[in-house]
């Protein structure tokens, strides 16, 4: 099941295993190969961005990490052990994610939304409320705690979704397009939050279309195209990589804005 570590883009420190290690991951849907031999790691406190055109397989990586799709070959390890396949197992292993459609409970209050993941990790009610309030405070949502989530404007809803992912104090945070649909001010604030989370030792893997945000916040960037990793490195290295430029139809990545062939999903 394991592949040679030489092709794994590793930023491992010392002997502790990386928080997330994806090695030789291959996923097929019928005859279509969605991911082909994808390998990368995310260390504790590191922010790694997955970029690539639509259909490149970014969300499939997330789903494979979360055990939501069957992998054909390869392995996902979290904290050195094979990733649990159940949602509760993943929460127990300190993995938490945001969903592409946000998936807020529209009729529940902001506070209740943030409390739901805590109910499944068996925290006591009073501790849960304290933890939830703390996270809401950190994201500037305290004043909205009692408001039904469905009534909020989009940027606030995105922050609620982020708060819901953070409330379990994850060791590995998966963010699906956290900057999508946000304005410049909200994106700055988001970058700040993501950095704070990673400074606290949490490994962050994010899928993102917004290149400026990625280049600003990521320690390393993994570029996917048609299910292959075509480049991996620091934002600067990736920006200069000829393969990346070619994949994006010759448009220099540093031009900013959304990458080449993409549209908003």
């Amino acid at each position: 099941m394991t592949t040679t570590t030489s092709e794994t883009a590793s930023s491992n420190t010392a002997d502790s295993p990386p928080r997330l290690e994806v090695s030789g991951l291959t996923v097929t849907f019928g005859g279509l190969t969605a991911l082909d031999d994808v390998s990368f790691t995310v260390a504790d406190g590191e922010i790694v961005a997955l970029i690539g055109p639509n259909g490149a397989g970014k969300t499939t990586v997330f789903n494979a990490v979360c055990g939501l799709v069957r992998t054909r070959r390869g392995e996902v390890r979290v904290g050195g052990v094979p990733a649990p396949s159940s949602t509760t197992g993943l929460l127990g292993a300190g993995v938490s994610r945001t969903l592409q459609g946000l998936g807020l409970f529209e009729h529940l209050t902001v506070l209740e939304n943030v409390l739901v993941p805590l109910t499944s990790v068996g925290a006591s009610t009073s501790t849960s409320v304290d933890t939830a309030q703390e996270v809401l405070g950190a994201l500037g949502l305290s004043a909205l705690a009692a408001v039904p989530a469905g009534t909020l404007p989009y940027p606030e809803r995105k922050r609620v979704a982020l708060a819901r992912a953070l409330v379990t104090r994850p060791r590995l945070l998966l963010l699906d397009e956290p900057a999508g649909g946000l304005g410049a001010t909200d994106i700055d604030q988001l970058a700040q939050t993501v950095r704070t989370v990673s400074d606290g030792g949490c490994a962050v893997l994010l899928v993102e279309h917004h290149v400026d945000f990625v280049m600003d916040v990521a320690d390393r960037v993994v570029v996917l195209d048609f299910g292959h990793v075509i480049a991996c490195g620091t934002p600067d290295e990736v920006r200069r990589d000829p393969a990346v430029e070619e994949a994006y139809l010759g448009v220099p990545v540093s031009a900013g804005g959304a990458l080449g062939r993409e549209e908003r999903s």
Partner: protein
Amino acid sequence: MERLVFLLSTGLARGAVLALFALSLVIVYRAARAVNFAQAAMAIVPVYVAFAVTAASGSYWFGLASALVVGALLGAVVERWLLRLVPQDNPLPGIIVAIGLVMVLQAGLAIAFGPDHRPVHAPFSQRPFEIAGVGVLSPYDLFVLVVAAVVMGALAILFNRTTIGLQLRAAAFAPETSRLLGVRVPRMVTLGWMLSIATAALAALLLVPTGLGLDPHAADVLFVNAFAAAVIGGLDSPVGALVAGLVVGVLASLVTGYASAATAPLAVLALLTVVLLVRPHGLFAAREARTA
């Protein structure tokens, strides 16, 4: 005037039972996203058990407790080992299975206990108190009101103030998202059925002494009126079920007193029609979009 006071107060007591039964329909609707057409038959089975336990032990309270326990068990058994096996992609198979279940349960009760009415004694007097010569609630009516209020209060606390309640609400409205956040959705569906059938059994148990007695169809009319009340209230809304249950109870009581008992169901259906014409989603329906 005396008559109006009497009819209003009796209507409230009947309405409390209706509200309780309507609430049970709302709970199961939230859990299963379907109206349970077997609710009356499933509610009356535990009442038979309560009747037998009371007869054997001499205690009404043992009977009441056994109705709650058997109701919860029956809810769990029917959900896990019957309805979960039915295709879920459209509601029709579930409805047909529910109707089949009604026939099996009611025929089974008739075979086991006979189809006749069995007189059931109330634990308290049913003679109305008189205030200034006007008959109002009987001690039993008061008991019914208190029990209904306590159960509704307990359910409100369970749903709104506890961890399990939050999981029940989350799973009811967005099962897929709840699952991704670690909520054990199938367990929540089972729990919803248990709460629902126990509540329905209690409502049926409270109703039986005020009617003709216990027979396999004793809760059928209760189901029809409570279903009307639940739809009027919005099917999704516990508050709606409570308010509409009381309104339907009082309306039926007034129409029975001033016109005739035969007219009361027509009045309830007329009210249902008017509400559905004016507000098709019911009076208290949640406006928010449901997400997957």
